[in-house]
């Protein structure tokens, strides 16, 4: 059998299938055996203060996807550390803590406080939530650099930066993140989208736009991951966006992702990530690959070894 562990990855994951920040919450509602079958869980994004999130409706159906407007609902950093973190540390997988703040010193303060917790496996700076009032930091390379610099100075944990899938700003923003000391990139967040109620002519979401996720954004995520891998051959990349089957996961790895984040897919079917892990192992074995590392970035170097 192929081994799924990806040692190239700073987190030394048991499988490249990871839970993306958001739909899996803090992992408590998922069955333990399903959590154990993924390489890591990225928590819901935690902010300095509690956030109630956006009013209903928060989810709107779209062709091949979903427009979401959760609005970073979370208990705030203090309550997270006190009440949630101990349970997160008990999860039978690696844990990446997702953080967001309006200012670089605020996110740095949280990153610094997490430094003492040696059992966490990484932090992810969410610089790309499309559903809050703050500017989307992740499209501005100078701001991205500043957020990462202040956090990098305060932690030795592996640090990932989650960026929007914006085709014009992603590469400069990613370069700024990596130059400022980020270990890796999480690509991409959900994509800004809009739906209008055709009966009344008004946006279906209170905040007008929301974040499009699901199979509709798979090609966008693949394009950004592919471009990032070409531009940064040594960066760690978690490719996230619209993967709902093993073929999608294989595409994401071939485009250059070291790990594949599952968001919408786990919302639709909580058992999907565990199934993807099993199916990926079978696929690698059938194709005589020893590990996922053998196919990461294959699209950049002649594809798979097809007999």
């Amino acid at each position: 059998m192929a081994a799924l562990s990806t040692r190239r990855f700073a987190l030394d994951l048991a499988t490249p299938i990871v839970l993306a920040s958001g739909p899996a919450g803090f992992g408590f509602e998922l069955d333990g055996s399903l959590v154990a079958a993924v390489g890591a869980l990225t928590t819901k994004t935690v902010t300095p203060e509690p956030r109630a999130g956006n009013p209903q409706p928060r989810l709107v159906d779209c062709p091949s996807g979903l427009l979401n407007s959760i609005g970073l609902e979370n208990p705030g950093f203090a309550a997270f550390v006190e009440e949630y973190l101990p349970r997160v540390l008990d999860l039978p997988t690696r844990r990446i803590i997702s953080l967001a703040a309006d200012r670089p010193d605020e996110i740095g303060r949280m990153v610094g406080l997490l430094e003492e917790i040696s059992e966490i496996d990484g932090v992810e700076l969410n610089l790309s939530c499309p559903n809050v009032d703050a500017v989307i930091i992740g499209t501005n390379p100078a701001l991205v650099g500043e957020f990462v610099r202040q956090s990098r100075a305060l932690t030795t944990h592996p640090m990932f930066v989650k960026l929007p899938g914006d085709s014009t700003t992603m590469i400069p923003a990613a370069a700024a993140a990596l130059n400022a000391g980020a270990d890796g990139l999480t690509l991409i967040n959900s994509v800004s989208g809009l739906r209008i109620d055709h009966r009344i002519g008004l946006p279906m979401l209170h905040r007008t736009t929301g974040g499009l996720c699901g199979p509709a954004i798979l090609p966008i995520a693949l394009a950004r991951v592919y471009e990032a891998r070409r531009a940064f051959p040594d960066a760690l990349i978690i490719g996230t966006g619209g993967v709902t089957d093993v073929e999608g996961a294989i595409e994401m790895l071939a485009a250059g992702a070291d790990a594949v984040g599952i968001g919408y897919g786990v919302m639709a079917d909580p058992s999907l990530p565990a199934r993807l892990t099993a199916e990926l192992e079978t696929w690698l074995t059938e194709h005589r690959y020893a590990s996922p590392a053998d196919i990461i970035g294959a699209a950049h170097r002649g594809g798979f070894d097809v007999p």
Partner: protein
Amino acid sequence: METTTKPQPQTARNGSFLSVSGAHLISRNRGAGYARVTLAGITEAELAQPGQFLMIRRLGSAALPRAFSVLRAEDDRIELFIKLDGLLRELLGSVPYRTRFELRGPYGVPYEEQIDTDQRYILVGGGSGAAPLLFLRERRPDLVAETVLGFRHDGASGLFPALDFVVEARDRLQAHDRLAEVWRPGLGVIACGPEPMLRAIARQHDGVPHVYVSLEARLGCGIGSCLGCSIPTLTGTQRICRDGPLFASSELPWLR
């Protein structure tokens, strides 16, 4: 069409939840705009309790499943009462028998765990909101003083020949108007239906104890992790799928 000659249900218990990838449609009774649909091949289907729901999608689909309240649960069968107005609902209303569906659940807190069971209630349903109430009435007739079911048009009466409906187009009356006629002090209310109906009931019975409303939203995960269905309540943010779907109307000031 995923109609196979020999459906082979695969059941897995994920924690306390049931997940079935081979439930198949065995019967359907269509009215105008509504249908009663039975899915079979569900191990331990009888575990579902009134107020609980299932997340359902076509087998093999990558779509986000939809939540359906249970109308009846018996042996390996679950019966639903659905409005035929969305893609999946139209599908359930039109696909050939034996078509297979993927379902998981039952989710949500059973009504009986949310209400005061020393109390008697008037059940008020609007449209397909009748489903969990009829299930409650079947399992706990002792809790029910009256049942008021309202529909905009008379399309569903053939599906429940033994029941009397309030039909707005015919009676010039809505379910909450009938409720106002039959309610008397001492009786509680359990309501499930469109938000305008729940609003009217919450206003009518402002300050009355034991008034409960069953809320609906487009659910994401159904298990309480995605926070797609969070709502504000007097005791903080709650999730319709995990903490509800039934809430005391007094907890929801925004509904009045």
